[in-house]
């Protein structure tokens, strides 16, 4: 089955089993390897992408459901919020092993796109689906606050 969608601004068509999770299409077919596999059941958020602007767990998103959609991955995420998040992440060295951080950055960017100055509760709600086994949570929280301040100017 051929499915056509836009990834990072570029139209792509793939001919795969329609049950194939978007995650494995991004990785195995399109070689966009920044999006990671962690659990396969939407528990950890390592596979988070933006689907039509909204964070989505690509590991449980069948490719058949994204026909005609706009998908953004860590390789293509851009704009003021993404830049502020990545700069804040770098400034305080958030990542340890780094494997979950693509998903963390995607979730944090989406949060700031929706909520300009998130409270700790907003952060908890937006980031609770992203596991970090290195427990970099203290710095993730700080970096989101730092990025929000940068965006406020």
């Amino acid at each position, binding site marked *: 089955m051929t499915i056509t969608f836009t990834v990072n601004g570029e139209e792509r068509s793939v001919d795969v089993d329609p049950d194939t999770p978007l995650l494995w299409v991004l990785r195995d077919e399109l070689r966009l390897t*920044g999006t990671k596999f962690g659990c396969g059941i939407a528990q*950890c958020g390592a596979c988070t992408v933006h689907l039509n602007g909204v964070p989505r767990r690509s590991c449980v998103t069948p490719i058949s459901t994204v026909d005609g959609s706009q998908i953004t991955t860590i390789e293509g995420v851009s704009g003021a919020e993404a830049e502020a998040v990545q700069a804040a992440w770098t400034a305080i060295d958030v990542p340890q092993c*780094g494997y979950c951080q693509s998903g963390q950055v995607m979730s944090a960017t989406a949060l700031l796109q929706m909520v300009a100055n998130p409270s700790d509760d907003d952060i908890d709600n937006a980031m609770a689906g992203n596991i970090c086994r290195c427990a970099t949570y203290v710095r993730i929280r700080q970096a989101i606050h730092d990025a929000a301040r940068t965006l406020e100017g």
Partner: protein
Amino acid sequence: MNIHTSRRSFLTGLIVAVTLPRLARAQGRAGYFDQLPASGTEWVPNAFIRVAPDNTVTVLVKHIEFGQGPYTGLTTLVAEEMDADWSQMRAAAAPADVEKYANLALGMQGTGGSSSLANSFMQMRKAGAAARAMLVAAAAERFGVSADQVTVEKGMLISGDQSASFGELAEAAAMQTAPDDPAVKDPADFTLIGTDLPKVDTKAKTNGQAQFSLDVYRDGMLTAVVAHPPKFGATVASIDDNAAMQVAGVRKVAKIPQGVAVYADNTHAALKGRAALGIEWDESAAETRSSEQMVEEWTAAAKAVGNSAKDWEVEATGDVDQALTGAEMVEATYVFPYLAHTPMEPLDGVIELRDGEAEVWMGSQMQTGDVGAISAVLGIDNVRLHTMLAGGSFGRRAQPDAHFGAELAEVAKAHGPGAVKLMWTREDDIKGGYYRPLTVHNIKAALNADGTIAAWDHAIAAQPIFMGTPFEGMLQGGPDFSAFEGASELRYATASHRLRWAQMESPVSTLWWRSVGHSHTAFAVECFVDELLEKAGKDPIEGRLALLGDDHPREKGVLQRVAEMADMSGDYGYGVAVVKSFDSYVAQIAEVEDRGGVPHVRRVWCAVDCGIAVNPNVIRAQMEGGIGYGLSAVLYSEITLEEGGLVRQANWDSYPIMRIQQMPAVEVEIIRSAEPPTGVGEPGTPPIGPAVANAWRRMTGKALRRLPVIPVPVA
């Protein structure tokens, strides 16, 4: 009953030369730059440093980077001695080559025991100093001055009004003789060591560019998954692969010693094919006990220690039995579950076979062992291993039996020439064993009238980790210290003391889990001493300081510092613990809230003494992460076996771990020290459990003696 009284710690155990007969054959003797971008114009002063004409300096790091910071730490050591500018520094994985890249604390190439920075401290500084000396000699020639007229600052060699960069002098430096034993700096002259240099790997880990094993794709590569036995000790009896072979994209099904491998064009097809397999398992040798039954047996063994041929007397001073006779005895039993490590990236790797050689990409934590195992399975000596960044480990990738490398090689062997990626799923990871051992402690003590301790009689029932693996030789016939390290060498004064280990057996495989024995011994010792102090009416901090006496200044230092840091004025519970592990000293105080009968940890204060602090920011990060990792297990996680031996947990929905809303605020202070640097990857983990449990007991009166504190109800 075995009697064994010699004392050892994890690291001193490792320093004993590892004798690994089957690993000695092949050591991946690839030329050490052939995995890196080829360039004929780089200067290679030694095995650890490359200077390029573009003025970048690349440090080849012999330790795997999975978040604990060696890429930054070891690169800092070189940059310091070269007087380089931090912006010109790069880090890359050293190849697998035990002759050049052995862990000096292990005698083989590998990472463990929080030893990366400690064992590299002088080695990497000497490497940097040697390169600097050669650059200075080259500059002196070019400038027409003597070497002592050349200064080096931020990557520039300067004499009077003449100057040149490292890159400009690289070719000339290559003509100089490397000094045998270059002098290193006086620590008073450090300019980079001791500062919060930005980590070298952060950017690539923020924009998706960092390359992990899972990200390796080779031409024509197949993806394989393996169906493993559902019970520990079971084997394949028969396979029906008809339905699996009907799945579009599935290329092959093969029986291998570890189970049944399914090969496909892509990951989705491989997983679908595996799900369609019909396998009958031979469970005649399988573990069929439930973990509840094992807890009962382990508890009985701890309480009856001394009666079995499998019991070991590890330490004994004074007459414990006599001191306990007729005394008012305090007794506590602590139960610790099996724990999975669940690193974010499950075990995975890529192997490519061609013409009698194998090229391997994996997050190898013990390169020498992994290369040896792959070589042995394939019967070839030419194994080239690329150590990839790994998505966490916490012990999971440090495999004495090299089981993943062996499985990867078996998958390749059954496939033949070409490339295969082997991936474990989260379910494979959680159900797949290699757990922190299920452990039961039983401690009895007698107090004197003045509150001092008359007797401390400690029994631990647990499976070994080293025994039965190629690392067993390290024990030199003694007991497996991984079961009791931290309970041995008790730092608190007691008139008599005994430590015994009941060696338990099960087909359930075990492995070191961040901080190894300390992951449970610290909990038992620090909770128990806290109860004794409370019983004696003593303050938890002053009481500990008194029991530590005069021989433990560094434990006392972190304890006093954390007491100064902590704000214990809130209407919450406060608990303290102090633990020495891997030659580092950590004290923590936890602020705990009672939320409807379960503890919520609000804040943690942490003081650490790890000798010279090479990168304080990395140390703070490791303390934060170690606290989160330890707290996660203490509060939420356990692996249990149902009756019949099946693992109940499958993924992070049934094996819950800490999420952001459960993470406390953490404040870290580092003790200023001139001692050699010691590890930080593990030592942040042991104190948090007992600090929280002590806070809870002092607040609610309820001692937490069975972990996890908040178990998932069994359906």
